[in-house]
């Protein structure tokens, strides 16, 4: 039974089954769980994560949320009143575990032979004298100055930690209500990982929910303008929608949560799935115009005859390119690899069976003008031009590409892995502003914790912590270092006179340290040390707060910490959220490189097998290499940092890039088999198959362009890069590969192996 008979016989089934499958997939879709916390998806072996968990076990989960207030003078009664109210409402909420602020931190000092422990602000000052006195006190208070109030008294912060089990949404709803109920003139900015997570989920999902449909509509309009036929729009579009539904529906069925990365799946399906349908439509229009007397069945049969193999092969290579993700170290990337390869398979089947099944019963459309009249659209003119350039000046084309690639590749050395997640947000976002403030005024937003184990009250251990503090505070970028040693020193200052030998020192005996602590506990809270030392004083944590705007700063500070740790036997573990983020970013990038190598090699081998020539594999890999190198190089030049989203994009680029090449080779082979010269073959291929490629690429490009409207930087750069990648793939297919073909006249295109036999009849 040939294709035609098969489709005619099972026509109904070929339409009904996919529709039912799609509808059924809508059910699991509603049960999908969203989990925006990428940290949850880290593989087990990540050291920083293991260390973090160990630390959390001892000291509890600590994910601080910062609320920063900005005012001309933080100490004005109005401002302090407001902050006091907010502070209390937060503190007494069931959602909040603990709150730190000027009203909560202590002011410990010695005064006339007495040690005084008070809240840093006992009373809200009402006169200028009172204000000045408080200002001086705060300057003298190492537990407040530059930690909770900036040196210019324009900024202050409330730091809170939500109770375990409280969702991001609950806590931020509560914070925003509390802020609204206590209005004031102070500008308020939020910061902290939970806030980032919350904003990413809220903003990214909202943007995608609004912009994706918009993108799809624009794509529809473009497809209509290109094909001038409703079927040319609706059929490829139906394939896109159905395969997106399948991919997303598969997630809950396979037990996958929707992660931040999952939003890339529909984007990827839009870019890939409409490909196949568009080529069939383009070929149908071409045949319809050239053979006015053919019936619809004849046209569809012939289109399929010519296209089923290249489409099948493009699908296969794309699936293999995407399957590269399955070897990725990050679970969501693996999951993306699995569901999208299944969905691409589905799109492939739909394009080869579902679309023809519908088309054979349709009336013939009016032949399109390109093929009948001399009238040319812009795309057709561009295709003509590119054919001319490739045929007439192939060397120049290659030179231009090579020099562009060399320039771009220099940029790769400037490419950095992103360590500042807040950069995902637009410039004016609260998170960006608050990060700038925290970096400039409060010692930074990054935190590395060092665990000390042993008898913490032993002077040796306590002095080691103190040594960390003095040495690290001299490291550029380090804002503050806090540990139990800090408090012991403060106690020693308030307990001893400045001329005493004990003043501002860690005592030399264990008893004295124990007595200092006991002494403090007579006037402080038992919880005061909870975040610094465990209950039986065998484990303590030292926390280093710092600013790092790029990975080099980060590595410099990290290594000065690690150097000290290596020299200190009681320092046993280094942990911190930022280390996890760094390790994760590295893992993603490394994972992506493995995936790319796998995909490149697999695709090259596949091309080698398909065209039975090693040179085919080589030539076919060129567009992929060009795209990858230029993509990463351009990122380096523009200062885009590699992040979770855009590093996965290269897989999409590979999946698409290879399709264009295969279609091109296939048509070239066909044209050459008709006895045409390389130049003629290239010209015909570009205006025919090239048209399908161009329509496909441009429709996807303008579809993605809507992401520029997103507020999220991460989506904007993503859109920019994917558009750039697609454009490069397109240029490679339409200019570079034809030019190389003209120059090298590859033999594999001439071979009349089995694979092209059908074209001859």
């Amino acid at each position, binding site marked *: 039974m040939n294709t035609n008979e098969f489709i005619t016989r099972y026509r109904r089934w070929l339409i009904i089954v996919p529709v039912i499958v799609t509808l059924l997939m809508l059910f699991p879709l509603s049960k999908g769980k969203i989990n925006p916390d990428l940290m949850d998806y880290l593989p087990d072996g990540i050291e920083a994560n293991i260390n973090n968990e160990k630390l959390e076990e001892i000291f509890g989960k600590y994910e601080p949320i910062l609320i920063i207030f900005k005012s001309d003078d933080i100490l004005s009664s109005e401002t302090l009143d407001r902050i006091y109210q907010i502070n209390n409402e937060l503190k007494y909420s069931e959602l909040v575990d603990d709150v730190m602020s000027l009203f909560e931190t202590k002011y410990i000092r010695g005064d006339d032979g007495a040690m005084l422990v008070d809240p840093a602000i006992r009373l809200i000052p009402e006169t200028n004298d009172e204000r000045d006195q408080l200002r001086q006190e705060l300057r003298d208070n190492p537990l407040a100055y530059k930690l909770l109030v900036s040196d210019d008294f324009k900024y202050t912060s409330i730091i809170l930690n939500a109770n375990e089990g409280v969702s991001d949404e609950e806590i931020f709803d509560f914070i925003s209500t509390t802020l609204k109920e206590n209005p004031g003139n102070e500008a308020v900015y939020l910061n902290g990982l939970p806030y980032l997570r919350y904003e990413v989920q809220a903003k990214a999902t909202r943007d995608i929910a609004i912009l994706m449909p918009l993108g799809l509509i624009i794509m529809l309009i473009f497809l209509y303008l290109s094909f001038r036929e409703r079927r040319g729009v609706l059929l490829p579009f139906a394939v896109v929608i159905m395969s997106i539904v399948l991919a997303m529906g598969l997630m809950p069925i396979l037990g996958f949560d929707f992660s931040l990365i999952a939003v890339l799946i529909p984007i990827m399906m839009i870019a890939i799935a409409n490909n196949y349908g568009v080529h069939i439509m383009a070929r149908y229009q071409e045949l319809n115009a050239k053979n006015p007397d053919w019936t619809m069945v004849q046209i569809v049969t012939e289109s399929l005859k010519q296209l089923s193999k290249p489409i099948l092969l493009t699908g296969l290579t794309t699936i293999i390119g995407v399957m590269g993700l399955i070897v990725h170290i990050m679970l969501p990337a693996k999951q993306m690899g699995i569901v999208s390869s299944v969905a691409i398979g589905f799109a492939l089947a739909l394009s080869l069976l579902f679309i023809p099944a519908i088309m054979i019963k349709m009336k013939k459309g009016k032949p399109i003008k390109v093929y009948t009249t001399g009238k040319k659209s812009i795309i057709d003119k561009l295709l003509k031009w590119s054919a001319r350039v490739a045929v007439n000046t192939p060397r120049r084309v290659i030179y231009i590409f090579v020099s562009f690639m060399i320039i771009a590749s220099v940029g790769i050395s400037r490419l950095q892995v992103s360590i500042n997640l807040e950069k995902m947000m637009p410039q004016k976002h609260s998170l960006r502003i608050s990060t700038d403030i925290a970096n400039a005024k409060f010692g930074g937003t990054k935190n590395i914790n060092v665990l000390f184990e042993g008898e913490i009250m032993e002077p040796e251990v306590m002095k080691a912590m103190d040594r960390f503090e003095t040495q690290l505070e001299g490291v550029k970028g380090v804002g503050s270092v806090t540990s139990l040693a800090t408090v012991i020193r403060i106690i020693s200052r308030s307990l001893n006179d400045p001329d005493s030998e004990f003043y501002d020192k860690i005592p030399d005996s264990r008893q004295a340290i*124990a007595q200092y602590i006991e002494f403090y506990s007579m006037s402080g809270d038992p919880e005061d040390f909870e975040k610094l030392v465990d209950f039986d004083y065998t484990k303590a944590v030292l926390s280093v707060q710092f600013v790092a705007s790029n990975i080099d700063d980060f590595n410099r500070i990290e290594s000065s910490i690690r150097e000290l740790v290596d020299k200190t036997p009681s320092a046993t573990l280094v942990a911190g959220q930022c280390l996890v983020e760094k390790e994760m970013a590295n893992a993603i990038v490394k994972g992506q490189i493995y995936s790319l190598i796998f995909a490149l090699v697999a695709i090259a081998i596949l091309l080698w097998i398909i065209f039975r020539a090693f040179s085919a594999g080589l030539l076919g890999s060129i567009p992929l290499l060009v795209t990858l190198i230029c993509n990463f190089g351009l990122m380096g030049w523009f200062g885009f940092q590699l992040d979770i989203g855009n590093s996965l994009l290269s897989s999409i680029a590979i999946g698409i890039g290879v399709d264009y090449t295969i279609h091109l080779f296939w048509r070239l082979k066909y044209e050459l088999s008709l006895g045409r010269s390389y130049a003629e073959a290239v010209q015909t291929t570009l205006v025919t198959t090239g048209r399908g490629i161009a329509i496909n690429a441009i429709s996807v490009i303008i579809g993605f362009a809507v992401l520029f409207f997103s507020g999220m930087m991460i989506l904007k750069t993503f859109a920019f890069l994917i558009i750039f990648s697609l454009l490069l793939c397109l240029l490679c297919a339409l200019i570079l590969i034809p030019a190389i073909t003209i120059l090298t006249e590859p033999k594999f295109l001439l071979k009349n192996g089995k694979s092209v036999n059908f074209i001859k009849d």
Partner: protein
Amino acid sequence: MRTILITSIAFLAFAFHGVAQDAREISDKSSKVIEFEAMEMATNLYIYDNKGNSRERQVAVATRKFGDVTKTLMRFLSPADVQGTSILIYDYEDKADDMWVYLPSMRRTRRIVTTEKGKSFMGSEFTNADMSRPNLDDFTYTLLGEETINGKICWKVEALTKSREMESEYGFKRRVSYIEKSTYLIQKSELYDRTDKLNKVMTLGDYRKQSNGLYFSYQMEMKNVQSNRRSEMKVKSFQLGSKLNENSFAVSSLEK
């Protein structure tokens, strides 16, 4: 801090019968009959965290009233690290307490000034407020009814702080006490926080009759139901009266 420690854990076995009383009267009576002029005791303080780890402190306490001032001397007996650390408290009728701490490792005495009674007592779940007799006028009392606690028929009396200031001073919004009808001994107190959520439960037990007819609780427990931490105080020995003279309660004697 009035008469720290002893006043709230000691009660007179003074029988009131039959007369219908209001809540304030009940509290007033149960409070008035607990005035100890002097006493000495050795007590163990156990502090447990929410994982069951414990810390133990042994403290010797002596209290004696001189005129209007109740003076209390506490000395750590163990653990070894803090052995000899002493605290001296002067509890005045009309002004804030004075408090000194002697640190043997440095042979120095330092005064501590702290304004909040709601602060922890020696790092335990007990607060300084729990250790002293509250001022009756700081609260509004309501009789909530009767309840039987451990087979003892008790009045259930609520004491609600009169202002936010009092609330932050005492560290709770309201306290519900279960006072045994026949003896006026508090069996249990529940402390509610600012959001009116149960925060701590104090249980008193092992009341022993002393030679002067007073009862004294040898065992107190304070459980923080929110953080799941608890502290226990067990009296090892108790003696009415104190042989220490006023000089022994002088700041200068701490360092001797």
